[in-house]
């Protein structure tokens, strides 16, 4: 079976408003196997998010090849779910209606869409909130809505762009655990972009370290911590600390480069 994602020599160049060219991703090679949970870490602004938009089909690569499940990406695929950094919920729709949006867009009958949406709302613990509007929910609850909205479509490939970065620390740990639990049954492949190394080790099978922008793969680390994991307890294990140290020695350098660049930009 072909891997879930294959990126071969992929580059993405943007034209900035001032007309200059900005290379976000350069010559990127990355393979994600089916059912694998891959975390991508890198310094801020290095082009991690761009990689996700290329895989999702929202953007086209300037150069190279992007394949999802063996097929070259052409537009937004059916089997893809995307959880954004900022909550992309419809503020004018109730929670239930938000979760129903995906199936309804895809032509599922209303009754069935409602049933599936209710099922997922129950799974994320928001069954009694279906009539609320987004502005009446907390940040963690909104994230659950976003998760349910994405997962109700049964994606085979789940792309997540720093989904929990806006949450407070406790909520974040809780959501990470819930994500692992929701994911464990699905067999979906996950690409989880983050700048938080701890989060990435706790969640993933494989951690990909990106270079300072333009992004390309620097090193890949296998995480051999046993599953099921609990985020709060796994980070206290000695093996976790070992892995952390190992990856940080690679990532830290890129972070330093980015920081120095930022300093020279300011100067």
């Amino acid at each position: 079976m072909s891997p879930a994602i294959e990126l071969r020599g992929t580059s993405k160049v943007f034209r900035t408003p001032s007309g200059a060219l900005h290379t976000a991703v350069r010559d990127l090679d990355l393979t994600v196997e089916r059912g694998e949970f891959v975390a991508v870490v890198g310094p801020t602004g290095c082009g991690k998010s761009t990689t996700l938009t290329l895989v999702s089909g929202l953007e086209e690569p300037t150069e190279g090849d992007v394949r999802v499940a063996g097929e070259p990406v052409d537009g937004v695929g059916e089997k893809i779910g995307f959880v954004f950094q900022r909550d992309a919920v419809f503020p004018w729709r109730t929670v239930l209606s938000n979760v129903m949006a995906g199936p309804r867009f895809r032509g599922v009958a209303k009754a069935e869409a409602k049933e599936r949406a209710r099922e997922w709302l129950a799974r994320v613990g928001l069954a009694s909130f279906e009539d609320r509007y987004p502005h009446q929910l907390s940040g963690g609850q909104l994230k659950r809505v976003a998760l349910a909205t994405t997962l109700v479509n049964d994606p085979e490939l789940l792309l997540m762009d720093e989904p929990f970065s806006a949450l407070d620390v406790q909520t974040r740990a809780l959501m990470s655990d819930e994500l692992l639990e929701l994911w464990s049954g699905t067999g979906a492949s996950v690409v989880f972009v983050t700048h938080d190394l701890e989060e990435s080790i706790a969640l993933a099978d494989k951690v990909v370290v990106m270079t300072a922008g333009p992004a390309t793969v620097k090193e890949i680390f296998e995480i051999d911590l046993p599953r099921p994991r609990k985020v709060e307890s796994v980070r206290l294990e000695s093996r976790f600390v070992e892995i952390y140290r190992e990856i940080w020695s690679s990532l830290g350098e890129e972070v330093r480069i980015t920081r120095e660049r930022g300093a020279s930009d300011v100067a």
Partner: protein
Amino acid sequence: MSPETATAPAARDKSGSDTSRTRARAQAARNKQLLVYATRVLLLVGLLGLWEWLARTAVIDPFNFSMPSKIWTQISNWALNGTPQGSLWEQIWYTLYEALLGWIIGVFGGVVLGITLGRIRFLSDVLGPYVKVLNALPRIVLAPVFLIWFGLGPASKIASAVVLVFFPVFFNAFQGAREVDRNLVANSRILGASDRQVTLQVVIPSATSWIFTSLHVSFGFALIGAIVGEYIGATKGIGLLVSASQGTFNAAGVYAAMVILAVVALLAEGALAFLEKKLFRWRPVDSGSGT
């Protein structure tokens, strides 16, 4: 983050002294509100009284400036005995009908074209300069042209209301369609929305708050269009009352027509605010907007 929301702690759970303090605060708030209303009424009465007094003592010329009592007599006279052009209600109805129809057509056209141009880059690039030129034109000068084209009947007034209403609504709808949260559009596409679904279920709902701000202003414009059209030449309407009163040097008549117009505009505004409240249930309630 538990799924249960915390309900506001009820004041009566606390001790008795707290309850009395709560009550005292509520009383103070109510008193403040009352003071505002009372001062408002007093201000109006004072101003009207001053006007009346100045006119009666001939400090200001009562022929030019009239006086509140005369205006009131004029309104009740029109209401009870009818105007020279027919019953007062018929005049109001005519103006309202022209304004409303012009408003509806203008809003519909503005929204449809605004959203279309906002969504289709090619069209907005091609038509952009022309829209700007048309907008720069002081459109009220079109009223006489419409009178020539469409005659003395309601059609010419509706037309001038339409051109006045169209542009603010168009620009707001256009801006609304342009400023849709890109994240939201990206998410909808990931969730499986087609272009049509994005337009109908994402862009239009997002743009409604933009459109609604323009609706408030534009109903005023519709009234202006109808009135000016009537003023220039008509067989019925409040604008005709103004021009007829002016023609007979009846200052009280002009003012009376103005008062009637103000009341009509306020009622329409109220209806619109009511509708907006119904439509925007999803928006957080903003605190302290007391008008």
